[in-house]
């Protein structure tokens, strides 16, 4: 039977990171994944990531995936694709399907990084073609280049629902609504605001009553729920739609850990998860779990957890001295802790603060309608009026993110040591209008405004990731934060140099009075 120092099940961000870290210590490593392409969820993520430099922030997910894969291959990791791991047994032996055969391999250590699967919701009509997981829709669009439908209702306002909702718009679908049974938007406000300013309405405290259609989805009815999650009669709303995306959470794919006999514990809403030590080692010595399989988080944390488990496996087999493991794990844990802070941190789940860490009011409009109210915007530290071109930063929640600060060559933007702090504008620094902050903002929350360009006009620069690219002279209508038309807008410039990594900067001229409200631009139909 073929033997490896380390066998990793799952080639997502966690598995590849674990493999690379272990291979770096000199281990012989094999990774098995059921898909034809490695990368797990990461290769579907076409948006720029949050976090700081240490977390590869502002890099698009699939590019992070390519880097990771190249690193693993350079270090001699063997990656087996189309290779589902069917079982994990005593003595750390795995059974893998390869082609028309099942093969056995032995690992002196095993890392399970099998990720998660999407939760489904049952409602009348949920088995009709056209009802799908949001992740499935994302796979169709971003991996297989197939548009899932033309009119989509998104159920779930967590980051997955918001991110996929925006990508559906980018793919040319109409998103008729984002609905969520919870009374508050579950994901980052900056993600919600991107959808809202494109005109997507949010229905909080709403759930799906039924999907309509006989052979496939032709419509959907949602209704408002009471505190007991029952639909209140008379609140039903109908939408014509051919697709319903479900984004109501993920469940850890713990099957292999269970076949191995790893001890599991009930973690309430997170489900039954493996009991792990600080390095991800399960109740069975030499078997580790990392990434979403050990608790749903995100790709950024999955990569760090993977590295910690990879280093621990190396230490277990004598490839990495105790002191070196301690040092490495210490530095990785610090990066992990930085991500686990802020308003959306796992430890703050279910709690909604009314003030930010800095004492600013948390916008209720953002949490219930998906956008900041025009009247409250000026109260945040990223928004100030100034002469000439200057940034307006509409990032108002404590989230772990700081690329805007690193981007500015003039020191106009400060987040500070603690990356969950709100970005603020330094009044003393002079903005040169380079646009780097706009392009590097993962939340597309930064705009450049020049309140007076002459002739009674102002200019507003908007991050723009849609095709076709606008051209100078194109006319259209500017939409407000709520997605409603506010004024006409003529394109002055559209820039998309390589350094902006495909975020276009669209500058439009608007009547001066509207420069504080125009936040999106739509071509004249």
């Amino acid at each position, binding site marked *: 039977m073929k033997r490896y120092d380390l066998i990793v099940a799952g080639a997502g961000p966690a598995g590849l990171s674990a493999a690379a870290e272990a291979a770096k210590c000199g281990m012989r490593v094999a990774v098995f994944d059921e898909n034809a392409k490695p990368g797990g969820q990461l290769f579907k993520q076409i948006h720029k990531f949050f976090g700081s430099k240490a977390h590869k922030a502002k890099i698009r997910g699939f590019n992070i995936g390519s880097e990771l894969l190249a690193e693993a291959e350079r270090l001699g990791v063997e990656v087996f694709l189309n290779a589902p791991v069917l079982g994990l047994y005593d003595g750390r032996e795995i059974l893998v399907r390869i082609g028309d055969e099942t093969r056995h391999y032995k690992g002196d250590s095993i890392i399970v990084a099998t990720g998660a699967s999407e939760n489904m919701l049952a409602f009348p009509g949920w088995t009709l073609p056209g009802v799908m997981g949001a992740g499935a829709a994302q796979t169709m669009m971003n991996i297989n280049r197939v548009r899932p439908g033309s009119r989509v209702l998104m159920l779930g306002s967590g980051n997955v629902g918001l991110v996929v909702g925006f990508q559906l718009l980018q793919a040319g679908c109409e998103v008729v609504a984002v609905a969520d049974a919870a009374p508050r938007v579950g994901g980052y406000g900056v993600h919600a605001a991107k959808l809202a300013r494109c005109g997507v309405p949010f229905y909080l405290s709403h759930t799906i009553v039924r999907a309509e259609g006989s052979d496939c989805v032709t419509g959907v009815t949602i209704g408002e729920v009471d505190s007991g999650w029952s639909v209140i009669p008379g609140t039903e709303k109908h939408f014509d739609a051919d697709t319903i995306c479900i984004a109501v959470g993920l*469940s850890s794919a713990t099957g292999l850990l269970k*076949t191995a006999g790893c001890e599991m514990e009930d973690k309430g809403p997170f489900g039954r998860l493996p009991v792990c030590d600080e390095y991800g080692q399960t109740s069975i010595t030499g078997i580790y779990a990392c990434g979403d399989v050990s608790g749903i988080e995100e790709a950024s944390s999955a990569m760090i957890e993977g590295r910690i488990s990879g280093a621990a496996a190396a230490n277990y087999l004598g490839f990495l001295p105790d002191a070196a493991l301690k040092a490495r794990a210490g530095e990785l844990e610090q990066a992990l802790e930085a991500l686990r802070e802020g308003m959306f941190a796992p430890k703050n789940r279910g709690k909604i603060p009314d003030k930010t860490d800095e004492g600013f009011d948390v916008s209720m409009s953002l949490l219930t309608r998906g956008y900041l109210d025009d009247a409250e915007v000026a109260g945040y530290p990223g928004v100030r009026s100034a002469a000439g071109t200057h940034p307006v930063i509409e990032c108002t929640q404590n989230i772990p993110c700081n690329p805007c600060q690193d981007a500015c060559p003039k020191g106009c933007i400060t987040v500070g040591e603690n990356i969950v702090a709100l970005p603020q504008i330094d009044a003393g620094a002079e903005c040169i209008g380079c646009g780097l902050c706009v392009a590097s903002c993962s939340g597309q929350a930064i705009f450049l405004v020049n309140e007076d360009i002459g002739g009674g006009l102002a200019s507003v620069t908007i991050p723009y990731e849609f095709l076709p690219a606008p051209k100078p002279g194109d006319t259209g209508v500017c939409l407000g934060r709520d997605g409603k038309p506010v004024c006409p807008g003529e394109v002055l410039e559209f820039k998309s140099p390589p350094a902006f990594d495909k975020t276009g900067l669209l500058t439009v001229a608007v009547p001066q009075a509207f420069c504080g409200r125009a936040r999106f631009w739509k071509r004249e139909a």
Partner: protein
Amino acid sequence: MTERKLLSDLVPQPDDDMVVCRCEEITKGEIRRAVHDGMFNIHEARRFLRCGMGLCQGQTCGRLVKAIIARELGISQSELDDATGRAPMRPTEMRIIASEVFGE
């Protein structure tokens, strides 16, 4: 293991005919009925109805079935075990399982 107890009568619900396990086409009503017939956990319901035993192996319906059983028993979902993890993790034809290679 959930304590055996007598349940009150099965009250029909408007969505009882909704399919919950798509692979085996088992409805919500059938699952509720099975609980009243004494299937007090996922394992028993699976063996009795085959819900979660089809192609996707419960990946889609596992949580849904669990929620229905818990509600019917009036207990919290965390009191119910998940289905036992068993190989093969993915649907695999018998001829492939039979072509087992131990060497290189």
